[in-house]
């Protein structure tokens, strides 16, 4: 393996993937949980599997850990086929959603458990346990039992325990799901620090798209046992490949219409909402007359009371609802045909002078390069 430091190994064809999931299928009776799924994950990646509940992401994770056998396909880790290896012999560790701490053992013993199974000498075990306790800042809690820890502390013990054996790959099943919002945000950054420091490959399962965006090097969006899109958080957000991904990640305004060709401003769409031509810069390769969609993130819609000084991409509407979010406000704008769009505006002015209010007649405008063209 070439040891070049690249931040995006998936773009470099010389890089060998670290984990290769090859056409894996998993069926529970008639139900197909994972449908012929292939995925390459590279060393030191922080890879997120994101999707609604029941999409198969946890099943995929459990298959990597060895708790579920797959019906077809195989998985390679560092070139080695691990498909037939039972879970207790895999060089992979997992952090469970429920943390699954051993309630009858102290924090220390929980962390040492995996090392003891490997029959390591006591001094090495003690040293490693100490390092782990320091890493998660729980040195003072070494002698406590899991029942005496808070949720955040339990989460750290679970992390330390799963990292103690220095696995090649760490699987995390909704690792932050049980924490409150503030602690979750703080822990996200800690997880990223630890991952960087220890150089372990992380695969995390989450249904929280914000979490996936924050922590991941790449995200795999799953639905019905299939990967819909695998890309960096920026790409997933700014260039989703279809309406499903666009809708699942963040808020989005979708414009349905008929493709009318290209001109110097960009791709033309005859919008069903405004009955006029709207533009996006991105080019498409489909016959004129096809049904296509424009996707626009709410923060890319400019909302003004004055008519913008351009002559395209303008929609007129009335403010229906305002969600004040402190640093920004969310506006629900009802178009003349009754369709409701969402726009977000940063609250740069502190005084009420520039504020929009309920019932205001407003114009929505966007730059053609802000819109994403979707074919499905």
């Amino acid at each position, binding site marked *: 393996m070439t040891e070049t430091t690249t931040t995006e190994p998936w773009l470099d064809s010389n890089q060998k993937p670290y984990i290769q999931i090859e056409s894996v299928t998993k069926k529970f009776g008639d139900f197909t949980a994972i449908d012929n799924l292939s995925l390459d994950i590279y060393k030191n990646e922080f890879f997120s599997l994101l999707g609604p509940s029941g999409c198969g992401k946890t099943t995929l994770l459990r298959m990597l850990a060895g708790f579920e056998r797959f019906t077809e396909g195989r998985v390679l880790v560092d070139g080695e086929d691990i498909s037939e290896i039972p879970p207790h012999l895999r060089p992979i*560790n*997992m952090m469970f959603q429920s943390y699954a701490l051993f309630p009858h053992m102290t924090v220390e013993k929980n962390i040492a458990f995996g090392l003891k199974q490997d029959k390591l000498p006591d001094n090495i075990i003690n040293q490693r346990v100490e390092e782990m306790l320091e890493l998660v800042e729980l040195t003072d809690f070494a002698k406590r039992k899991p029942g*005496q820890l808070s949720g955040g502390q339990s989460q750290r013990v679970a992390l330390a325990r799963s990292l103690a054996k220095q696995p090649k790959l760490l699987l995390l099943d909704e690792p932050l799901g049980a924490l409150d919002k503030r602690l979750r945000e703080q822990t996200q950054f800690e997880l990223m620090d630890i991952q960087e420091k220890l150089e372990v490959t992380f695969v995390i399962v989450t249904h929280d798209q914000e979490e996936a965006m924050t922590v991941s090097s790449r995200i795999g969006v799953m639905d019905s046992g299939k990967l819909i899109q695998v890309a960096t958080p920026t790409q997933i957000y700014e260039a989703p490949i279809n309406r499903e991904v666009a809708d699942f990640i963040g808020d989005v305004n979708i414009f349905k219409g008929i493709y009318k060709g290209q001109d110097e401003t960009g791709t033309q769409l005859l919008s069903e909402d405004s009955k006029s031509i709207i533009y996006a810069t991105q080019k498409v390769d489909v016959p004129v007359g096809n049904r296509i969609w424009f996707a626009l993130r709410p923060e890319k819609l400019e909302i003004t009371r004055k008519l913008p000084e351009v002559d395209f991409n303008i929609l007129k509407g009335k403010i229906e609802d305002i969600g004040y979010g402190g640093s920004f406000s969310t506006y629900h704008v009802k178009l003349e045909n009754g369709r409701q769009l969402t726009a977000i505006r940063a609250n740069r002015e502190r005084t009420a002078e520039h504020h929009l209010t309920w019932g205001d007649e407003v114009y929505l405008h966007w730059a053609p390069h802000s819109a994403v063209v979707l074919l499905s």
Partner: protein
Amino acid sequence: MTRFSKFNVSAIIIGFTFLYLPIILLILFSFNESRLVTVWAGFSTKWYVELMQNQGIKDAAWVTFKVAFISSSVATFLGTIAGLVMTRFGKFRGRTLFSGMIYAPMVMPEVILGLSTLLTFITLAIDRGVLTVTLAHITFSMCYVSVIIQSRMSSYDDSINEAALDLGCTPFRTFLLITFPIILPAVVSGWLLSFTMSLDDLVIASFTSGPGSTTLPMKIYSMVRLGVTPEINAVSTILVGLVTAGVITASLIGKRQRQQLAQS
């Protein structure tokens, strides 16, 4: 406040009197100086001393403890396995039948249970004695143990076992190091419950015992037929004390376990 209304207080007094007055009288009169059971003649422990000299009662007590100890230990072993199978192995062929068979002895009238085990021993030509009583006690105690284990396992987080496997522990060691220590309190309270049930069983023991395997409840029952003596009161008091201790310990263990679960 209606908590201590006249109705509530009197209901409690009447209820507890109804339940415990006979037992309290029995305990009181076991310390009676007089041989007459109904006349109080001052405090004395002489009936306990006399008890110690009664070889028949001592033999019966020894048989009872032997039977209770062995039957509760075997029943705990088998009941734990049955409870684990019912909760850990998911669906298997004959699961419903198996679970019905585990519960059967709980709902079956004791007389029927005693009679059917007796018939089994006769058919198999097994001489009745300590062994047959022990076997019969295992049969009916086992189902209680399995129920206790099943209820413990229903709140057991399977991912704890998966975590142990994931950390390199073999399935068998996982049971020894993780599952068993966690369910140990349930196993202990199952054992205590079987022990006390074997201790005070009369019906099944009467059916399945033979010469030389008279248990304490049987001995007491036969003595009573010749009239109630303070000696019987004394031996009953000891039995009541043991059973009470067993039941209280079992429920304390259960309570502590629930508290631990609530914490984690």
